[in-house]
């Protein structure tokens, strides 16, 4: 069930909700038309369905259209997606021309009626060719990790990106040298979703019992898909070194191994590294395990996110939101979420993680202080209400050049 915007006031305060209504009011009369490539499945569709619903409740005329494409088109866009992630794949000129052709066909069939065309990810990026004819404001929203893109694909996309009025990225490292303004909008978590809402203690207990986890001893948890970049083997080493001093348990839980050959290999390596230690719980969770993830995070004494590379790393925000002390690698978007020794711990090595994990398990008072600061930081900066505010400000910024903009009661 979709949340009501007013339900968030008990979490973030009425002043935050009032601010959203005030900003939304300045967009009265403007149509915000979102375009992406899928209506269901995937993170972007999930974010859009929540966002559109909440924006409409705020009085913003937000709409959502999806481009059409055949298998060939989506195979090409998948290759482009991988290339943007730095994977060494080649996209041929013929494929790029087909990509362009499908975009042009969509542009002919779609009613591009928005005052602001908010285009998500590379698949529909070439719709901006219509800007010359239609005018309007065009924004490109990049949801993917853009740290080390393949230059040829990047050069092709740049031809389109620079036709937009603004581009939006999720982390500072994704910024490029572009001739258009680049806006930073971090992702967010939804405190009312199954993954993050409060859970009754009985639910938490039943999840622990189901997985055979002891409720009386400290639980150290890392939630992530089974991927070498999340360093699950490193986490097991950390646990083994800490276990010599503190009788704790380790939970490594996540999905993603079923349809990914490398994921299956990682899972096998993790199980081998765990060997026959009954206090290491390796849990391969099926999709739609949000309640289980929520319960495992809430039951944890300390949460780890020892990634070697990370996009944004929203599991950190999830852990902090549950007022859990988090030790995480200083990679990707994690340093935006944790200020070292203020709202959690940032580490760079296995040694460092061992040191701080022992410290937080020995000093629960200190761990709790970090956790509460972390929760406060997430509340103010990484909940969906902040995300909506950033989108409203982005839309408003398209109509204002100055660095200080006074919004009076007359609207835009």
């Amino acid at each position: 069930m979709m949340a009501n915007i007013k339900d968030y006031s008990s979490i973030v305060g009425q002043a935050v909700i009032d601010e959203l209504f005030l900003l939304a009011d300045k967009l009265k009369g403007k149509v915000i038309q979102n375009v992406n490539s899928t209506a269901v499945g995937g993170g972007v569709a999930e974010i859009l369905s929540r966002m559109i619903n909440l924006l409409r409740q705020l009085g913003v005329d937000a709409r959502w259209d999806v481009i059409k494409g055949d298998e060939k088109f989506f195979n090409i866009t998948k290759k482009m997606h991988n290339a943007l992630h730095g994977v060494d794949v080649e996209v041929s000129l013929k494929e790029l021309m087909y990509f362009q052709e499908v975009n042009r066909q969509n542009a002919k069939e779609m009613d591009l009626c928005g005052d602001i065309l908010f285009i998500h990810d590379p698949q529909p990026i070439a719709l901006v060719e219509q800007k010359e004819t239609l005018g309007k404001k065009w924004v490109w929203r990049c949801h993917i990790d853009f740290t080390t893109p393949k230059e040829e694909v990047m050069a092709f996309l740049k031809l389109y990106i620079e036709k937009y009025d603004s581009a939006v990225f999720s982390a500072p490292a994704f910024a490029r040298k572009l001739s258009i303004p680049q806006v930073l909008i971090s992702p967010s978590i939804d405190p009312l979703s199954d993954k993050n809402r409060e859970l009754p203690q009985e639910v938490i207990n039943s999840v622990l019992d189901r997985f055979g986890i002891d409720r009386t001893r400290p639980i150290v948890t890392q939630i992530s898909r089974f991927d070498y970049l999340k360093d699950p083997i490193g986490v097991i080493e950390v646990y083994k070194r800490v276990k010599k001093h503190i009788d704790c348990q380790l939970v490594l839980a996540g999905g993603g191994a079923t349809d990914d050959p490398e994921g299956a290999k990682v899972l096998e390596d993790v199980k081998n590294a765990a060997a026959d230690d009954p206090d290491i719980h390796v849990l391969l969770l099926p999709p739609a395990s949000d309640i289980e993830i929520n319960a495992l995070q809430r039951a944890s004494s300390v949460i780890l996110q020892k990634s070697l590379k990370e996009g944004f790393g929203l599991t950190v925000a999830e852990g902090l939101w549950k007022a859990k002390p988090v030790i995480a690698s200083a990679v990707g978007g994690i340093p935006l979420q944790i200020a070292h020794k203020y709202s959690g711990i940032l580490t760079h090595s296995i040694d460092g993680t061992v040191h701080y994990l022992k410290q937080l398990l020995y000093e629960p008072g200190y761990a709790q202080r970090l956790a509460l600061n972390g929760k406060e930081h997430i509340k103010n900066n990484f909940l969906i209400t902040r995300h909506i505010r950033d989108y409203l400000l982005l839309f408003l910024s398209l109509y204002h050049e100055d660095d200080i903009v006074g919004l009076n009661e007359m609207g835009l």
Partner: protein
Amino acid sequence: MEKAFRFFSEAHCVMLLGIKSRNPIQLLEGIKKVPSSSIYYHTHRFLQQHYRVSPEPPNDFAYWITNILGLRELGESITSVDIINIDSLEDLRKEYVTRLENHILSGEYISDCIEGHEFHFFDCKTFVYPTPFIAKDVDELREDLEKVHINSLCFHIFEPKLRYQRRENDFSAWLRNIGEEKLADQISRLDPYAFTLEGLRQKIIRILGRDD
């Protein structure tokens, strides 16, 4: 109503400048060329985002120098720039430039940060808007201050001097205007950079309640 205090609030649309630094020399180059709104953002972001946490470190430059480059002495020097006694963002920029240049010219060893930990320069477009809170006297000002969003406090305390070239914060200016010189002086004397924003809010509320 002529002398009423209208609370305004602010929100920042954060822009990425695509400029990054790996060491103090590149940080200096960046500080010299970014827009003044970028200097404002990097010296106030931490306070606004961590408004209940310890007031240190008050700016992004100092945090990066201390925690990423490990240059504690330089970090302390950048942390301790007395922003409250600086009248404009250009003067603030000059102060950072001087301190960084002194460090670089002192011949200290300069090394790059590890990859992925570069300092990224941001900028901000600040939207300012009226809130429904209007105070007609000191008691109403105190009551409203308890209710407004923390960004409203930021706007009335930090922005007037640095971005609007006013002599002092908006609360003190208004209090002076209605003849409350003593309260105005008490608030004006505070160094807001040495508080958390929540701590500052409570301190001003106590002053307005004449409890301090």
